[in-house]
């Protein structure tokens, strides 16, 4: 206890101000919900203010680790914090009109979202596996509830239960992994894993394997993906938008941190092979199964599984440029994927019913703006140049080829070819089919418009001017002890 885990310094407190704001605002919103129901229409604004405040404190915080080296403030965690904050802002913008349409504008949604966001922040800033685990659990608990937010809808309850059961299973794996690493390194700090000899220790290897199960689950990396389609389908769309982006990014960062500590001297080949197998499995399974999907949320779930396969390539490459590439990739994925879910939220009338792709027929003419943004997002997810998605793949594949992983890169691009099949299926519905239903999509709320506009602008801006983000990401990647591409 001599490191001062209990006694905080003022610097320690300043460094957790971003998370404190989120926790506090969550409580305020819940109290308002209980005692001042008329304040409901301000919840979204309050949540946005909380995110803004949290980002403000994050940017202002001095770039030194606090709590005795257990809590990180660095270019890396600030950049990732901006990524998470952007996900949360877009999610809230989508959530407000969505909940209004569904007649469920309750404070719980925003409070849980903020707490979930708090959990993800802890995951990305924790340099101690226990903090990371607490973050993971905070996130999970909040989203178990959000999954079953539509209490009266069977699919939503099913999603909640499924997510809870499989999620607690995965958390148990994570915790067991943490315990094993603790046992071998004598502490829970990630940097303690850098002790010589640990890299070849079988118990450590097993511990990392268990972490892969736990965080692979959060990433929806095959074969730990099975929950995603069902949960995506039943969960409120804005919550899915957040869940499909932010926690995945955070999980990759955690894995990168742990691996960078353990394998400071380079990743052993058997590990590389194992992660490469996961990447190939995830890409291929996600893309092939997505081809057969009829529900847009399930389709996007499988597309997400495939994308995590691409991301896993960066873990195989395991180098400085690969980490920078994966950061750029996640920024691209943020605007593309949340944009796609924002469009889905804006285009479907009945929130609690399934979302068949066929219902989009003819929407290109009936709802031109959300349809155009959806098409743009899908082209970006497919990796067509001049969009953000291409830039993400560009840096990722560049790193892979630099490391000599030709086969993996080849499998990756062949997979993007497969993915064109289902992304274009949606575009085809939007623009090349006559409408199925008389009723047009609901009128577009201004918050929806803003979210869609931001995502579209982000996709094009990042796709056309990727230079500065790449530089930032490279500087951020310097924070981990990584070598090579």
């Amino acid at each position, binding site marked *: 206890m001599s490191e001062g885990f209990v006694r905080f310094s003022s610097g320690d407190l300043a460094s957790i101000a971003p998370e404190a704001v989120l926790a506090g605002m969550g409580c305020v919103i819940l109290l308002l919900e209980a005692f001042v129901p008329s304040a409901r229409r301000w919840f979204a604004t309050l949540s946005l203010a909380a995110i803004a405040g949290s980002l403000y404190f994050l940017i202002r915080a001095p770039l030194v680790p606090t709590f005795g080296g257990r809590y990180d403030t660095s270019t890396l965690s600030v950049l990732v914090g901006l990524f998470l904050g952007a996900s949360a802002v877009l999610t809230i913008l989508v959530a407000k009109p969505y909940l209004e349409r569904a007649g469920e504008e309750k404070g719980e949604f925003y409070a849980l979202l903020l707490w979930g966001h708090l959990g993800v922040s802890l995951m990305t800033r924790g340099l101690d596996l226990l903090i990371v685990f607490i973050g993971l659990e905070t996130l999970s608990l909040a989203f178990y509830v959000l999954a079953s937010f539509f209490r009266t809808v069977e699919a939503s309850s099913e999603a909640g239960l499924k997510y809870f059961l499989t999620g607690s299973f995965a958390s148990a794996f994570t915790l067991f992994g943490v315990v094993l690493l603790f046992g071998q390194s004598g502490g829970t700090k990630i940097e303690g894993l850098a002790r010589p000899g640990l890299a070849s220790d079988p118990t450590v290897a097993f511990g990392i394997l268990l972490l892969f199960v736990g965080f692979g689950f959060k990433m929806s990396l095959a074969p730990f993906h099975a929950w995603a389609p069902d949960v995506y389908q039943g969960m409120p769309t804005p919550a899915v938008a957040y869940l499909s982006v932010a926690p995945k990014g955070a999980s990759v960062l955690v894995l990168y941190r742990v691996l960078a500590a353990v394998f400071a001297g380079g990743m052993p080949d058997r590990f590389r092979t194992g992660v490469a197998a996961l990447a190939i499995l995830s890409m291929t399974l996600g893309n092939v199964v997505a081809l057969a999907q009829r529900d847009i949320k399930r389709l996007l779930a499988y597309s997400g599984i495939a994308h995590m396969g691409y991301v896993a390539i960066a873990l195989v490459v395991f180098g400085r440029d690969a980490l920078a590439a994966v950061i750029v990739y996640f920024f691209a994925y943020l605007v593309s994927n949340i944009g796609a879910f924002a469009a889905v939220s804006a285009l479907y009338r009945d929130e609690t019913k399934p979302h068949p792709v066929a219902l989009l027929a003819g929407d290109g*003419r009936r709802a031109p703006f959300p349809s155009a943004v959806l098409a743009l997002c899908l*082209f970006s997810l497919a990796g*067509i*140049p*001049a969009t953000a998605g*291409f830039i993400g793949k*560009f840096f990722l*594949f*560049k790193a892979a*080829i*630099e490391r000599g992983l*030709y086969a993996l*890169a*080849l499998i990756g*691009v*062949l997979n*993007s*070819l497969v993915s*064109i*099949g289902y992304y*274009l299926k949606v575009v*085809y519905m939007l*623009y*090349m089919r006559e409408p199925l239903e008389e009723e047009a999509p609901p009128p577009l709320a201004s918050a929806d418009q803003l979210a869609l506009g931001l995502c579209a602008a982000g996709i094009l801006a990042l796709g056309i001017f*990727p*230079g500065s983000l*790449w*530089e930032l990401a*490279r500087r951020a990647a310097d924070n981990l002890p990584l070598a090579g591409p």
Partner: protein
Amino acid sequence: MAGLLSDHLVSVVVFLPTAGAALLLLFPRALERQARTAALVISAATLAASIPLWTRFDPSQTGFQFREKADWIPSLGISYSVGVDGLSLVLVLLTTVLTPVSLLFSVSHVEREIRGFSIAFLVLETGMLGSLVALDLALFYVFWEVMLVPMYFIIGIWGGARRIYAAMKFFLFTMSGSLLMFLAILYVAIRYHVATGSWSFALEDLYRLSFTGTTETILFVAFALAFAIKVPVFPLHTWLPDAHTEAPTAGSIILAGVLLKLGVYGYIRFALPLFPDASIRFAPWLGVLGVIGVVYGAFVAYAQRDMKRLVAYSSVSHLGLVVIGVGAFTTISLSGSIIQMVNHGLSTGALFLLVGVLYERRHTREIDAYGGIAAVVPVTTALFLIATLSSIGLPGLNGFVGEWLILLGTWASPHRWWAVAAATGVILSAVYMLTLVQRVFWNPLQHEENRTLSEIRPTEMIAASVLVVLMVWIGVRPNDLLERVRGSVDAIQQSVAQKQLAARGLR
């Protein structure tokens, strides 16, 4: 301002269409027709802006002219670097001519979603022009892929009955080739980094690399495959008849006129000088595939009952000829291939346009549904005949120049028999094209409804006349084109020869 514009002439030409497309986005739905006029004006302005490229181009220089360079992703040496040489110049002009021609034709024929159609066309134009002027491999790849999306929409939304299938096939075929090229581009740039310690995607830097053995073969194949699919070289051509048949007329004009040429262009610009050894090694294969394309395309064209499919297969045959010229790789055959690309763009563009004219009146492209309409629509007939004669290489029209040069140059190369086969292709093209003219325009008039066929409209006629004038001009004064092309042909041959010498020296 004028100085600024002329310093960035290439960028103005490339991005004017997209700027116009962005402007069209702001047009309200009620002003759809005005959007069409605006698109026409924008493409005409692009044409006007591209004319100084032609007049100010200095044929005595062999390098790139009108250069512009700006950093894009500096830490990876990726730059916005553009410029034109003779090879790209003629294709840029072809693009800026064919785009307003297609839009002009569409004025009276595209009724649905006019605004979207115009936007897709203008973005497509930027994609094509950008691919032609890009001197940075990453930049080239971006433009190259950007072309796919608007063309997918043009076929998929405004196309015929099987448009969805055709659009998807077009997208997947072209994409599969380019993805392999994407990896090859990354590999080449990484090799440059390894060799020199600095990053660059600039073409002129990468030209200096030499690859050997299997590596070169694999890289060459990855590049060549992407371009061969686009051309398309037999047996990768199967997407083309579908795409052409289903695409709206304007889409077919651009597809045949420019998009296919980009395959040949890419091969000459990138695959040849980057991998000279492999391209010389594979040249016989290329030539043989070209010969097969010429003969096979001609026979299949002859068997078609659908006019548009016939013209589409004639493209396979004609581009086979171009491929032979590139494969032979003599100065004359290479110049001939480049000229022939322009010629094919003009003549096939005109043929698609005139087939479109007939289709819009009878809503069928079956050859048997016509016959004897020469007396009913004499102007259409005359224009069609000129386009046909240009296509089959009648002296005095453009087609002759290109075909003659290709045959001559190929005869002078070690692969004499290709010239023989190519010459049969020329004869065969006369057979199927003249048969088409006979069956559609001459033969006795059998269908009553053809008696009242309306004559070509002014807008359609202007569109077609532009092409006819250019056919005659090139036919009479081919030197205007040749002198501009010659410099770049020499430069390309020299760089290939030098690299081969250097590579031999290394071994």
